[in-house]
């Protein structure tokens, strides 16, 4: 791991319409790190991703992404950050093929007006291949299940050839088997592309089994550390309230939260 962080928050605060969403955040992200972000609803998880995308600027403090201040983030920088938004399933009637969706990953670095080259097509095919969707590339995107659509959107993000991959609740609204496959896929691309991953989720048990570092947010950064340090009643209770129950499953802690917090 290199010493120089690729993302640096320095006492950064973010606000929506004058309402503070994230306060006094100081945090470094390093190349190749797998970071899971947890916290109750409205704790600033999505704000953190918006800030990393350069779509929200700090009202105080600073945020450095790659080698520039986030306010100066230009299109070519954004192209280096892949993003899987929390997205409702696409309308089955929307006329777009899997190939067209994945190709959109190239548009940012292609620049305006220019058309995709042979090299771009190879990158897209490679990305679709890595999520096992290359065979279906001419299929309508809207006809896929929620989990398959997520795979294609991951391929779209990979086709960007990003250095950082941001994932917003990638497993929400997907059945358990598909969830497991998706998690395996995320781990696979993390390893294969040496990607820095920031994954936002409400599924504490899922993320603690895959991430190296967990960030616990509730308007500010409550805790940061390896899963074993975060998954304790002492750390979680101040944020989630007294309803946190820590059970054991396969020798590992298993967190049960009250329904109120658990559902997005």
């Amino acid at each position, binding site marked *: 791991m290199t010493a120089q962080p690729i993302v640096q928050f320095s006492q950064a605060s973010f606000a929506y319409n004058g309402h503070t969403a994230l306060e006094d955040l100081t945090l470094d992200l390093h190349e190749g790190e797998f970071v899971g972000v947890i916290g109750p609803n409205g704790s600033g998880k999505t704000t953190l991703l918006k800030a990393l*995308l350069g779509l929200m600027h700090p009202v105080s403090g600073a945020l450095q992404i790659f080698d520039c201040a986030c306010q100066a983030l230009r*299109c070519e920088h954004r192209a280096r950050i892949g993003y899987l938004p929390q997205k409702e399933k696409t309308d089955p009637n929307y*006329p777009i093929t899997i190939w067209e*969706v994945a190709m959109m990953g190239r*548009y940012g670095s292609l620049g*305006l007006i220019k058309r995709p080259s042979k090299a771009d097509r190879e990158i897209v095919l490679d990305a679709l291949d890595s999520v096992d969707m290359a065979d279906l590339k001419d299929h309508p995107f809207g006809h896929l299940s929620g989990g398959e659509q997520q795979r294609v959107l991951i391929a779209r993000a990979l086709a960007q050839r990003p250095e950082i991959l941001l994932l917003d609740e990638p497993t929400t609204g997907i059945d358990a088997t598909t969830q497991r496959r998706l998690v395996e896929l995320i781990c696979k691309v993390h390893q294969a592309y040496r990607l820095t991953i920031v994954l936002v989720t409400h599924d504490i048990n899922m993320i603690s089994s895959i991430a190296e570092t967990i960030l616990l947010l509730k308007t500010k950064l409550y805790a940061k550390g390896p899963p074993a340090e975060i998954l304790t009643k002492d750390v979680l209770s101040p944020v989630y309230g007294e309803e946190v129950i820590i059970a054991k499953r396969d020798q590992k802690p298993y967190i049960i939260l009250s329904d109120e917090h658990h559902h997005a």
Partner: protein
Amino acid sequence: MLELLSYGFMQRAFIASLLIGLVCSTIGVFAVLRGITFIGAGTAHAAFAGVTLAFLTGLPPFLMAVISGLSMVWVTTYVQEKGKMKPDVPIGVFYTFTMALAIFFIGLMQGYRPEVFAYLFGSILSVTQSDLIVILVLSLAILLVLALFFKEFHFISFDQEMAEASGIPAKKLSFLLLNLIALAVVIALKAVGAILVFALLVIPAAAAQQWAHNMRSMMIYSALIGVGASWTGVLLSYWFDVPSGATIVLLASAVFLFSVLFPGKRQGLRRF
């Protein structure tokens, strides 16, 4: 049939309907997929208000239509951002505001002015040589911009936030698209009429969506329906002396109804 084409007004009607059908139906694809068709109805009425003011003051109607149509886009975009509201609210307000202005201006006119009503109901057979030149220049400009930014418009229609996050200047392009829609409406105003031009923007694209599996095929189907309905409408209008704009819209509506009842997609036509 061929002798029809020897008449100057028929030649102009065919060329104008080709251009209008093509421009409205292709830009309509983006309008329909983005769910921003209402701006088309809004700009049509704003442009009509501009035309009535032109007749009242003696200014050139086409220029006034362009100015008021584009103003509609700028004002509603500004109000929408300033007031943090959904786009249909300011469009709804200015839609009726400009229609009220148009009625007000008509009320100020001396006597009955039939040429004003041509802009309301459309009259493709009365397109003049100079009208045609403006339609031609603006159509080519719109089609050129559409072709240049096709992949970007495609991306922002699919998901604007994702496009912006990937480094596409999504907000600027989205505003550009609104302006193009306004211009498309303005060039169709005299031929199809302020009330019906909205249909030419929505119907071919909506019908095409029932058949298309990708963007290119939706564009092609939409253009075929738009131009086909326009040409057939011109012919029927000439032969049976029926209003051209209404005939074009009725034909397009029939195609739409057919495509909803018999959607090509569910019958395995997916190679296109």
